[in-house]
């Protein structure tokens, strides 16, 4: 902008500010859901430093601020991937086939808590939890049932599993082989992001170091044998759900991403050999613009650091691809139908932000697992955005907005500041050990709750317009029989399989765990002879030990 024009606009801005200052505003400060103050007006003065070529560029071209594909949704609509799973493998298999029939384009498996924590269904710690908040998978046999009549070479599957990701992944691969599909035809994603477990989600099993080794073993095995697989989905979703701000979600997730890159490099892998298979997973919270800016900033930071700091050359290593899920923590138990509206706004922000795949929450998820009807509305929400709203007609439609560009820059700067603080702690693992992330998140969560309690943050139907009416919606009930049935089938499996082969495979696994070799082939051997997830985890715990929680509030 030339100097005269700049001066003119500055003058006009000040004049406007004076006028606007005379009128009374509703509140003293206007803030995002992350407590970020927002100005009344953004003008060219806010984006004066913006360099179009350097900071934005074009879709599919470095630094990818505007999107990772050249034609984005004009080429292909994002993948509508509804996370689901409940009961036993039979129940979930039916739900998956229903979703595929309804036009869903990818699967996303939710496991129950015992599976996530590495316990078999018959472990005493699993009592009351089997099939409750996801599907119970104990062995390859369950995996075979789960994907019965689902062609795993045509459908990609995302599996939300972290601590025991290697085991569930091996079961998936073993099932594919049994279906006669070669591993290079199999595509999908495992979440496999252990760092955010220590930071936010707290479903850990092993201590950080052996966990990181399992992850780099997966990177290496996948690069050689399962090239279409996304080996990790570096997740900010749970960081946000645990109460972080948008800036923290952005910064901590990317910091985790860079930590995995460094782990891969330190394990002797070439960065371009594994980085193209790294993917991300973000939250879509209710503050529409801040979320859009978060995604745009994320792509730019990732591309810049990967190129400049880690020397990645393959452009696939520079492109941040991500999945998005609307914010579970924004849903309310009060008047649950309102959640449909919240989810719509959140989903639209993810689309405006250029997501590659999307899960929209069902209105009843704050009360229980979703019913078929609620899931259908959630999926329809995405379809309406995709095909009716016009949002998919043009790429990165909010680019150039003074507000959006300024906020994108601001989020990037805040993330850089967090990276510096993490470095001061000695890196991500040390910062976890010192409780840095955990404390930042706990503080933000508490502040948010206080803001709601003080009515500074309005939640419709909760602290404003609360009619006190009870929810009138139908909820999905999990039959308590599921647990008994699952435990019964597991017992049968333990009787009918070749237990000598199981013991041999577990022994070999432990021996390998003590040395430096890749563990994946041994885990694959164990699952193929129907060793259970719990047995494999116990074997590895003997070598690796267990992680213990940090006392932070």
């Amino acid at each position, binding site marked *: 902008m030339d100097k005269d024009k700049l001066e003119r606009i500055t003058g006009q801005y000040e004049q406007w500010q004076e006028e606007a200052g005379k009128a009374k505003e509703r509140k003293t400060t206007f803030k995002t859901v992350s407590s970020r103050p927002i100005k009344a007006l953004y003008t060219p003065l806010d984006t004066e430093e913006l360099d179009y070529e350097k900071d934005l560029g074009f879709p599919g071209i470095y630094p990818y601020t505007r999107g990772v594909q050249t034609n984005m949704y004009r080429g292909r609509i994002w993948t509508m991937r509804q996370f689901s799973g409940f009961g036993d493998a039979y129940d979930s298999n039916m739900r998956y086939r229903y979703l595929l029939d309804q036009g869903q384009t990818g699967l996303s498996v939710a496991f129950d*808590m*015992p599976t*996530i*924590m590495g*316990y078999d269904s018959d472990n*005493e*710690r*699993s*009592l*009351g*939890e089997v099939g*409750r*908040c996801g599907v119970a998978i104990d062995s390859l046999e369950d995996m075979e049932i789960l994907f019965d009549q689902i062609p795993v070479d045509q459908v990609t599957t995302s599996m939300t599993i972290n601590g025991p990701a290697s085991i569930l992944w091996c079961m998936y691969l073993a099932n594919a082989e049994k279906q006669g599909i070669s591993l290079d035809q199999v595509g999908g994603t495992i979440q496999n992001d252990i760092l955010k*477990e220590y930071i936010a*989600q*707290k*479903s*850990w099993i092993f201590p950080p170091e052996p966990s990181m080794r399992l992850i780099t073993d997966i990177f290496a095995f996948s690069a050689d044998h399962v090239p279409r697989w996304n080996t990790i989905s570096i997740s900010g979703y749970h960081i946000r*759900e*645990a*109460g972080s701000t948008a800036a923290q979600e952005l910064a901590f997730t990317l910091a985790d991403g860079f930590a995995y890159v460094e782990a891969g490099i330190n394990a002797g892998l070439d960065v371009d050999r594994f980085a193209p298979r790294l993917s991300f997973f973000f939250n879509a919270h209710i503050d529409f613009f801040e979320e859009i800016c978060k995604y745009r900033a994320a792509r730019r930071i990732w591309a810049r650091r990967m190129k400049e700091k880690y020397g990645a050359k393959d452009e696939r290593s520079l492109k941040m691809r991500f999945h998005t899920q609307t914010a579970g*923590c924004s*849903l*309310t*138990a*009060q008047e649950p139908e309102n959640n449909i509206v919240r989810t719509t706004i959140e989903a639209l922000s993810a689309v405006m932000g250029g997501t590659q795949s999307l899960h929209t929450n069902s209105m009843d998820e*704050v*009360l*229980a*697992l979703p019913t078929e009807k609620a899931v259908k509305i959630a999926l329809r929400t995405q379809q309406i955005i995709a095909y009716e709203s016009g949002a998919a007609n043009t790429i990165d439609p909010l680019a150039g907005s003074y507000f959006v560009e300024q906020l994108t820059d601001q989020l990037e700067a805040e993330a850089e500041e967090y990276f510096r603080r993490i470095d001061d702690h000695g890196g991500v693992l040390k910062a976890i050990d010192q409780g840095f992330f955990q404390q930042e998140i*706990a503080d933000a*969560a*508490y502040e948010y*709750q*206080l803001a*709601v*309690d003080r009515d500074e943050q309005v*939640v419709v139907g*909760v*602290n404003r317009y609360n009619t006190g009416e*009870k*929810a009138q919606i139908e*909820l999905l009930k*999990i039959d*308590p029989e599921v647990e008994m049935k699952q435990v019964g089938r597991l017992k049968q499996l333990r009787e009918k399989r070749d237990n000598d082969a199981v013991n041999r495979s577990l022994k070999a696994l432990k021996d390998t765990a003590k040395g430096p070799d890749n563990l994946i082939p041994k885990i694959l051997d164990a699952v193929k002879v129907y060793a259970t997830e719990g047995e494999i985890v116990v074997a590895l715990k003997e070598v690796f030990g267990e992680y213990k*929680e940090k*006392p932070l*509030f």
Partner: protein
Amino acid sequence: MTAKKVRVLVAKPGLDGHDRGAKVVARGLRDAGFEVIYTGLHQTPEQVAEAALQEDVDVVGLSILSGAHMTLVPKIKDLLKSNGMGDVLLVVGGIIPEDDAEELVKSGSADQVFNPGEPLDNITEYISGKFYK
């Protein structure tokens, strides 16, 4: 230090790791003057009951988001009873469907169930009301 402090055990039984609610409530209780003993995650019912006993608490607060509440809450209540702590106030928070909440209260397993979105003040005032009349 002569005033009797109300001691609250905040526990996360079961396998889910979502401790945002438990921690926010723990801080809220602390800031309302309660002495909170936090057990940490992934506790078995036996561990919860034993901690309640050793810490001689007046209130046990359970946070459960995994759907296992109908198994875990009655079990913890029974263990408390067999430890001679049946009169301890037992409150539950988390993802608890209305029907289940009613059943937990009706059967005497829980004294009160709080859902997501419950203001902190409601929780602290509920507990205060039971001890400082």
